[in-house]
């Protein structure tokens, strides 16, 4: 059962996404902050990280860099699932490869089904 670390600051959305992913067969740990996410990874490394860039007190891109600085977490794929629209997100190809961003999803236009499909595509590549 693939383990998903969901980093989502909004408590209602966190519960909703967690329930949907668990319904789809994933084991989900939810964290609402960068600090909480690091603690969760310390307990058990996930197979994929789903990250909202607009966190409270932390910039999501800064968290990405910090996350990748830990050698044991360098190969864990990251799916950006964020309120930041594509027009505002200046992720260069280099950054994407360097930071291991496997996919980008704009939350308002991403249904639960689409989220599940895209996460499945990352944890079980063809």
């Amino acid at each position, binding site marked *: 059962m693939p383990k998903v670390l969901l980093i989502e600051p*909004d*408590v209602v959305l966190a519960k909703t996404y967690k329930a949907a992913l668990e319904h789809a067969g994933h084991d989900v740990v939810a964290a609402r902050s960068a600090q909480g996410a690091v603690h969760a990874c310390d307990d058990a490394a996930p197979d994929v990280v789903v990250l909202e860039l607009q966190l409270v007190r932390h910039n999501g891109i800064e968290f990405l860099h910090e996350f990748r600085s830990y050698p044991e977490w360098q190969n864990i794929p990251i799916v950006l699932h964020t*309120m930041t629209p594509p027009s505002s997100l200046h992720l260069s190809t280099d950054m994407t490869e360097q930071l291991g961003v496997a996919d980008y999803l704009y939350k308002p236009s991403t249904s639960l089904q689409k989220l599940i499909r895209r996460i499945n595509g990352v944890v079980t590549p063809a």
Partner: protein
Amino acid sequence: MTATNAVSQERLLRALAEQLKLPLLHIARQAELAAMTGSTSVPNTTITQTASMALQLIDGYLLSTDLHAQQSLHLEPVSISSVLHDTAQRLQFLARQYNCEVEIHLAGKYEPVMGHRESLETAFTMLGYSFIESITEGKDRRLVLAAHRSGKGLVAGVFGNHPGLTADMYRRARALYGNSRQALPTVSPASGAGVFIADSLLAPSGSPLRVARHQKLNGLAATLFPSQQMQLV
């Protein structure tokens, strides 16, 4: 409305539009989850409360535009204790969802202050919503509605565990709101429209929000002035 006010109201409207994505997303995804899981028990209370908060946000914005359009604002004696108690009632549902305790700290009785009751209550409610939603993991999960006397008047506001909320941060946020997706990152993962609407509601009565501290908690508060009429009685 002056040109400056018009620009501010436009920025506030953009911040509001950005903020409203969140409750709409709550409703859409919860409805989808219910359909996906075949659940017959859609969390109606959560959806209802989410919709209610979004409507209050819109009403708060509309009230602020009305206040700014008025030539002069009619102020009346208002009991701050009553305002804070009513605000605490409104915040209870959201506080429970976030495992947060709402406390009221009032040191004794206060004379009425000159204010606009509706904007005071709406402003403190907006602040409360924003502060509660920003509570993440941590031991201190309190939201405190407090008032205390100062040399200038009665300072009343909303306080929580926000160590990053400083006067500089708030000043930068006031310059950025409407043009930044996350103008107040230490308080809100979204645009923080509730905070700026609250500020907009209080400014016309001469009591804009400022960063303040209460028992080691940071928050936003307004300085209110006693009712001269009541003092003469």
